[in-house]
C-alpha cells in the first residue's frame, strides 16, 4: 500500500456534476434567432468565443444552429468577434 495513502472511514462524496440537458429539446425551442443577442450570449464566453458542447450541454443539431446564429450576429455587428469582459 502506498505509504502516504490516507485511509478515510467513509468514502469522500465527490460532488456529482449537474446533469446537463439540451435546453432546445427540453423547452422545445426550434429556431435560434440571430437577432436575439441576450439569448445568444448564454452560448459564448467572456472573450466572445463559442462555448463547446460539453459546456453548453447542447445536442449536436442545436449547437450547429447556435453556431451559425452567432456567426450571423457577428457578421452584422451585433456580437463582437473577439473582446474581453463581454458580459
Amino acid at each position: 500500500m502506498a505509504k502516504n495513502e490516507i485511509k478515510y472511514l467513509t468514502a469522500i462524496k465527490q460532488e456529482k456534476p449537474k446533469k446537463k440537458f439540451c435546453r432546445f429539446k427540453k423547452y422545445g425551442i426550434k429556431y435560434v434567432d440571430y437577432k436575439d443577442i441576450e439569448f445568444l450570449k448564454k452560448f459564448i464566453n467572456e472573450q466572445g468565443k463559442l462555448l463547446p458542447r460539453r459546456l453548453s450541454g447542447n445536442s449536436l443539431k442545436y449547437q450547429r444552429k447556435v453556431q451559425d446564429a452567432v456567426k450571423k450576429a457577428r457578421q452584422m455587428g451585433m456580437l463582437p468577434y473577439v473582446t474581453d469582459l463581454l458580459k
Partner: protein
Amino acid sequence: MNNYELMVIFTPVLSEEDFKAAQKKYADLIAELGGATVHSNPWGLKSLAYPIQKKTTGIYWVLEFQGPSEINEKLKIQMLRDEQIMRHMITRLDKYAVEYNYVKRNGGFAMQDKTEA
C-alpha cells in the same frame, strides 16, 4: 415563394427621411420584382460591436419578405451599388423561423420560456 429576412445596416449619417426613403425604395423594389413584404422593422440607430467602415454606430433595418428565389440576386446588386448601405444580409427562413417571427411579433413569447435555467 420562399420566406427571406433582409437585415441592412445604413450609415449613421443618414437622416430620418432618407432612412424612410431608402426603406420605401427597397420595399418597392421587392414588390416590383414579384415579392411581398411581410413585416418591416426599423431598429434605428444602434451601436456596433466593432467599427464597420470606421463607424461605430449604424442604423439597423430588418425586413421580412416572401419572394421567388432569384429576387435575392437582384437585391444584392442594388444594395452593393448603394453607398448608404454599409452591410446587408439576406437569410432564408425555414418554417420554424417564420413561426418564431410570427409569434414574436404578436407578443406570444412570454419571457420565462426563453430565459430558462
